[in-house]
C-alpha cells in the first residue's frame, strides 16, 4: 500500500511509500480526511516516498491549510528524501510544507 494511516494516541501518521501519484490520490485524500476528522495532530511520513506528483502535493497542501486553520499540528515525520525536496522545488513550492528539510 503506497499510503497508510496509523492512528496513535494524540496523533495520526500517514506514511507515503514509493511513487505517490494520481493513482493513489483518491486514497490519500480519504486518509487525510479521516486523520483531520480524528482531531489529532497530523504527521506525514515521507521518508520512504520516492516521488510526489502534483495531485499529492496539492492534497498535502490542502490538508496542511485545514490542519493549521483548526489549530491542529501538521508536521513532517522523519527526513524528507532529496528527490522529494527537488520535486517540491521544481513545482515552485520550496516553502511547503513548513518544516521540510531535505536530506
Amino acid at each position: 500500500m503506497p499510503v497508510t494511516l496509523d492512528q496513535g494516541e494524540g496523533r495520526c501518521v500517514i506514511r507515503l511509500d514509493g511513487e505517490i501519484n494520481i493513482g493513489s490520490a483518491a486514497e490519500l485524500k480519504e486518509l487525510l480526511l479521516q486523520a483531520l476528522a480524528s482531531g489529532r495532530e497530523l504527521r506525514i511520513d515521507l521518508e520512504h516516498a520516492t516521488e510526489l506528483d502534483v495531485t499529492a502535493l496539492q492534497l498535502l497542501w490542502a490538508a496542511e491549510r485545514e490542519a493549521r486553520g483548526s489549530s491542529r499540528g501538521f508536521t513532517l515525520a522523519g527526513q524528507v528524501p532529496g528527490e522529494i525536496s527537488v520535486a517540491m522545488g521544481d513545482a515552485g513550492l520550496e516553502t511547503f510544507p513548513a518544516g521540510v528539510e531535505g536530506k
Partner: protein
Amino acid sequence: MLDKDKFKQAFLEEAREILVELESSLLALNDNRGDNELVGRAFRALHTIKGSGAMFGFDELAAFSHNLENAFDEVRNGRLEVTSELINLSLAALDQIKAMLDEAAGGAGASGAASAEILAKLRQLTGKPETHAAEAAPSPPSAPPTATSGVTRDWQIRFCPGADLMRAGANPLLLLRELKQLGSLRIKASMAAIPPLGELDPERCYISWDMTLSTSAPREAISDVFIFVADSCELTIEPGTEPAAGPASSTAAVKSKTPKPKFPPWGRRASDTPDNASSIRVPAAKLDQFVNLVGELVTVQARLVEIAARREDPDVVAVSEEIERLTSALRENSISIRMLPIRATFERFRRLVHDLARDLHKEVELTIEGADTELDKSVIDQLNDPLMHLIRNSMDHGIEPPEIRLAASKRPSATIHLSARHSGDSVLISVADDGGGIDAEAVRNRAIE
C-alpha cells in the same frame, strides 16, 4: 483505471494520422529539398509522436522517434542536408514507428534489429550518438533541441493546467523541469484555486504557475515545451519588460492563449482547424451499424405507407407521410456521413511510387487531380488494391528507365496521373502514365509461351 486506456487508444489512432502527415511531408520534401516549412512539419510530427508516446508509456517508441527528431532538428538548423538517403531512412523509420504502434495495439512485434539498424544508419548520417530510451523517455515530453537566438532575454510565462490534464496522463512537473532546461527559471506556484480538502477532486490539478525564464531560446522553443498539453491548459508567454542582455528586441509582445480542451490532450496538429475542432471521431463499425439501422427503417417505413394506403385513415396517412419525409432525410444524411474524399487513398500512393521508383531506378512523379471527390467509404476501401496494381503495373512495365526515355526524346522523369471526377451519377477514376504503353509484341510472345 481513469481514462488512461481510452487516451492511449486515442493516442494510437492520432499517431497513425500524424504518420500519414509525416509521410506526406517527407515525400514532398524529397521533391522540394529546400522547403523549411516541410522540414518544420516533419520535425513537429516527430516531436509530437515522441512526446505523447513517452507521456503514455511508449518509451521505446519515444526514444526511437527522438533520434529521428534530432536529425530533423539538425536539418532545421542548417547542419544537415536533405538527401535521398535521409528521406529514405526517415521513411524506413516511419515504417518502424508504424510497426511499434501496431505492436502497442496488440499486433505483431516490431523488430528490435530493424530499429537498431535504422538508428545506426542515422548515426552515420548525422555523426551524432544515439539517444537512448533512458534519456528520452523518463522526462516526457522532452525538450526539442533548440536553436538559440544568441541573446538572453526574460520571458513571463503563466501556465494553468486544465481540469483534465492529469487524467490524460500528463505531468505538469515534467513540463516545468523541461522548461528549466532552457535557461534560468524562477517559478512561483499559485495555490489559490485549491478548494477545501473535502471538495477537492484528487485527480485534478488546481495549481497554476507564474514563471520568469531567462533564456536565449526563441519563443517557439518555450511553447514547444507545452505542445502536448496546449489544448488542456491556458498558457501565456510574453517577453519580459527588458532583455536580460544584448540589444533591445524588436519582437512584439506575443500572447498565446490556448482554447479550452477540445482535442485529445497531447497537442494540436497544424492541420487542426476550427472545422476539425467541431468534428468527432466515430469507429467505422458504429457508422456501418447506423447505416444498416437506417436501411431497416426505410423497409419498415415502406410497409407503413402500404398499410396507410390500404386503411384509408387520414390520420394514419398523415403520420405515414411525415415519417416518410423524415426517413428520406435520415437516409440521405446517413449516406452523406459515409462519403469521404478520395484524397487519403490517392496520397497513400505517393509512398508506393517513391519506393518503387527507387527500387526500379526510375524517375517518376505522381500527380493527383480531383482528390476532393467524395465516394462512399465502402467503395473507397475497395479501391486501394486495384489502384495499387494499376500503379505497380505502370511502373514495372509501362514507364521506361530514364536513359530509354531520353533516347525517345522524352523527359527522363515520367509522370503517373491519378484523377477522380464526377460523371453523371458515377465517379470516374483514371490512372494514366506517359510511359511506353503496353508492348503488344511482348504480350503476344508471353501468351504463346
